């Protein structure tokens, strides 16, 4: 356990001592701020013209946050690869992977240390967004249940996305390839939920819909916490961390 902590601590420190974490934090929070302002403006317009927008009068903050969190999912397509792309690709490029391999450290400890480090960085980013719901709580009426289930969903979603990013970084040698591949895979998992029915019908369509992140994440945004969705994200995370372990172990033998 201690070794996992040391590896994670070193990674977090490296992220914050380089401009990487700073840039990621600034851009993410800036975009979230812009989105929040934009959705609030729409909501205000809707409440001012209930007939035109079909609203029932008053600002529906729950809708504002649902739109905001859906956009966080979209933004993570770019921010998750930004933090995971160098995890192993850099170690391989700089030969520091030999430093880890020749130390009395198991591959599981390396994988988990790296995963927890990026989980910490992304977790901090999510915690920073709490300012909007807290602000909204003071000035309006917001369903606290939906609020919490949305954040639980966001943490589970980012955990699954990061595990996929960790795995892709473990199989690639350059940051660029790692980044592009992660964006493509996350994009596929985002759109599969919407596109599944038009791609294929019947069982295959249902399957594609099931493996998509969106179909599970949307339930959290509606305030529904179901065991199926929680298990889906946790299984996805564990599976891709296991794949990372297998990939790193097998690379020593290839």
């Amino acid at each position, binding site marked *: 356990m201690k070794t996992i902590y040391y590896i994670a601590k070193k990674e977090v420190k490296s992220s914050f001592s380089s401009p990487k974490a700073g840039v990621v934090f600034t851009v993410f929070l800036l975009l979230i701020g812009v989105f929040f302002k934009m959705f609030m403006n729409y909501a205000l317009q809707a409440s001012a013209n209930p007939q035109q927008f079909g609203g029932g009068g008053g600002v529906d903050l729950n809708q504002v946050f649902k739109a905001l969190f859906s956009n966080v999912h979209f933004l993570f397509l770019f921010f998750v690869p930004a933090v995971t792309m160098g995890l192993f690709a850099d170690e391989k490029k700089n030969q520091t992977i030999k430093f880890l391999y020749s*130390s009395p450290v198991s591959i599981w400890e390396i994988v988990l240390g790296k995963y927890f480090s990026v989980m910490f960085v992304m977790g901090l980013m999510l915690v920073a967004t709490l300012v909007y719901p807290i602000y909204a709580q003071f000035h309006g009426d917001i369903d606290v249940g939906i609020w919490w289930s949305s954040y639980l969903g966001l943490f589970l979603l980012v955990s699954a996305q990061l595990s996929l990013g960790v795995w892709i970084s473990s199989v690639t040698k350059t940051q660029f390839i790692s980044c592009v591949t992660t964006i493509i895979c996350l994009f596929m998992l985002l759109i599969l939920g919407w596109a599944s029915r038009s791609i294929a019908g019947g069982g295959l369509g249902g399957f594609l819909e099931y493996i998509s992140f969106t179909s599970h994440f949307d339930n959290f945004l509606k305030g529904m916490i179901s065991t199926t969705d929680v298990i889906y994200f946790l299984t996805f995370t564990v599976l891709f961390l296991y794949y990372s372990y297998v990939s790193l172990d097998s690379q020593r033998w290839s």
Partner: protein
Amino acid sequence: MLSVKGLTKRYGNILALSDVSFEVQQGSVVGFLGSNGAGKTTTMDIICGCAGCDKGSVTVDGYDITQNPTEAKRNIGYLPDEPPIYSDMSVEDYLIYAAHLRKVPGSKVKAKVSEVIERLSIGNVRHRILGNLSKGYRQRVGLAQALVHDPKILILDEPTEGLDPSQIVQIRELIKNLGKTHTILISSHILSEVQNTCDQMIIINDGKIIEQGSLEEISNKVSSGGGYVLKLVSGAKECVEELKTSGSLSFLELVGENDQDIEFGFNGDRVPEDLIRIAMKYGIKQIRTKGGNLEEVFLKLTK
């Protein structure tokens, strides 16, 4: 201390190592010699657990590297061909990180790091960022991370590669001093380096161990057919002409870049008096066993 048995490793169709076996005894400094691409780094990577092998086993202080990797790796300090440093970390932070990963007890980490910093004379750069250091200092820091957990055996892969002459001398001195307290396996393709620092050597070529032992043992094996080299102050050609007439030698020829050396052999267990008498006239610089110098041994074995 270190036992390597029957290591075989393939990269696709290329046979990188074939049945590599050797032993390194406690307290010895062993040179691992081979040309570029001979299999030195692959062997060292397998010994340190950075790579796997298709066949064979590695035992470090009684622990098998695949069955008991944690215990085996605690006894190894590895400096790969490129010092494995994180360019965004400071020297001190990096060594503390290395100490933590190598399971140095928390209460001893600071003391161990300070000790190794002092030993490798890197105190003046301890707060500097690794990415800003010169190649010589990086190599020292690489050695420091290999030493921080006080391993029983040090594996050094071409530690002087890419350094300037003064840095080479400094690193060699360091290794010589480390050899007093540690078992060391050091790879190199610079023969003089091995000759100066090691008491045993293993020669690898095309993934196969072709010779091992002390320099003397190896040269004796290589020059088992007999033969000596005579270096004169001047007049090698004239001397050969004169020696040809004496008839006491089994063979005689001029060698060296400008035919300045004489290679000869004789029957019996005494140097013929004729030879000494004639050679004395031209001034004897040196007489040595043929193949007694490492370059000749190496070239003969690897050709």
